[in-house]
């Protein structure tokens, strides 16, 4: 049993558990699943700067900080107690592609060549961490939600604007990963 838990979990186990978070949050307190709103609540709490978009009672949304705190704790627990030291298995075609850019470390879930404090002082690392993060924060709020709020919660509630958003998430991702990212990685 413990050995099974230490192996990477299959997609259907993860999918079922994540899907059940939708009714869990609704039944526990009428909360719609969504994570990117936290970024807005941080702005509203710390830097509202008299901007209309950040003038609301963020304390009413405090449950979302508790939820994200749980994500942090869960990741900590899983990383400390439920992992093996096996490297991440990656599709050979992707390995070949990444090797061209000097990315060969598969010991961690994030390539240390791109996401580390050392990488921050390289041009491509700076672009990936700083510009990438900016696009995530700007884009999710502009779209009114992220993978959880639109793709899972919105689609579960059969909202067609969420389908539009999800299609655009995927289209943007395909374009970036296949057309632009190779250029960034070669910097």
């Amino acid at each position, binding site marked *: 049993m413990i050995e099974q*838990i230490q192996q*990477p979990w299959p*997609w259907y186990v993860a999918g*079922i*558990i994540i899907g*059940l*978070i939708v*009714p869990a949050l609704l*039944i526990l*307190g*009428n909360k719609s699943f969504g994570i990117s709103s936290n970024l*807005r*609540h941080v*702005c509203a709490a710390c830097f509202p*700067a008299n901007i*209309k*978009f*950040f003038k*609301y009672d963020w304390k*009413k949304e405090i*449950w979302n900080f508790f*939820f994200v705190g*749980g*994500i*942090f*704790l*869960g*990741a900590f627990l899983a*990383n400390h107690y439920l*992992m093996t030291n096996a490297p*991440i298995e990656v*599709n050979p075609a992707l390995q070949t592609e990444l090797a061209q850019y000097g990315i060969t470390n*598969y010991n961690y879930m*994030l390539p240390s060549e791109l*996401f*580390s404090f050392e990488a921050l002082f390289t041009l491509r690392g700076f672009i990936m*961490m700083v510009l*990438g993060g*900016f*696009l995530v*924060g*700007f*884009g*999710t*709020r502009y779209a*009114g939600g992220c*993978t959880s709020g*639109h793709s*899972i919660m*919105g*689609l579960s*509630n059969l909202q067609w*604007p969420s389908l539009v*958003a*999800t299609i655009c998430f995927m*289209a*943007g991702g*395909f374009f*970036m990963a296949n057309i632009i990212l190779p250029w*960034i990685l070669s910097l």
Partner: protein
Amino acid sequence: MNNEKVQNIDSNTACVNASEQTHPGWYNLKYTLVGILFGIVFVKAEIISWFRIQEMFRLQSFHMYGVIGTAVVVGAISVFLIKKFNVKTIHGEVIKIADKEFNKGQIYGGLLFGFGWAITGACPGPLFAHIGAGFYAVLVVILSAIAGTWTYGYFQEKLPH
């Protein structure tokens, strides 16, 4: 843009707190428990892995499609059952889910988030899980995401919606 439209976008982008009841602060710990389960799944199913996201956007693996697809099916069945049987919350409230209203932000913002997703290999949830899993440098990515959200708020009324 008229005021009413801004109002709509506002309610659309806010995480709507449908509950009208007030509870002591520690009641929120129930959401922490759900979050812990989510965080464990994020790590154990390698959803927070940059490599899994790259495989997804290159059609080199079914994994992420399986995760998101299954989650949507389970979520949709759950919402259907909640509505059909008029399920109440544990505090006896009627469950309300706000509709998503369409605006062009879902297209422009959706594409921009897609770019960021492919670069960082993470949507907002996994970013928080990265910190828990010990990738402290991702704090830079989160701060940058907060700056991005703030910038959106600053320019919101000037952006096409």
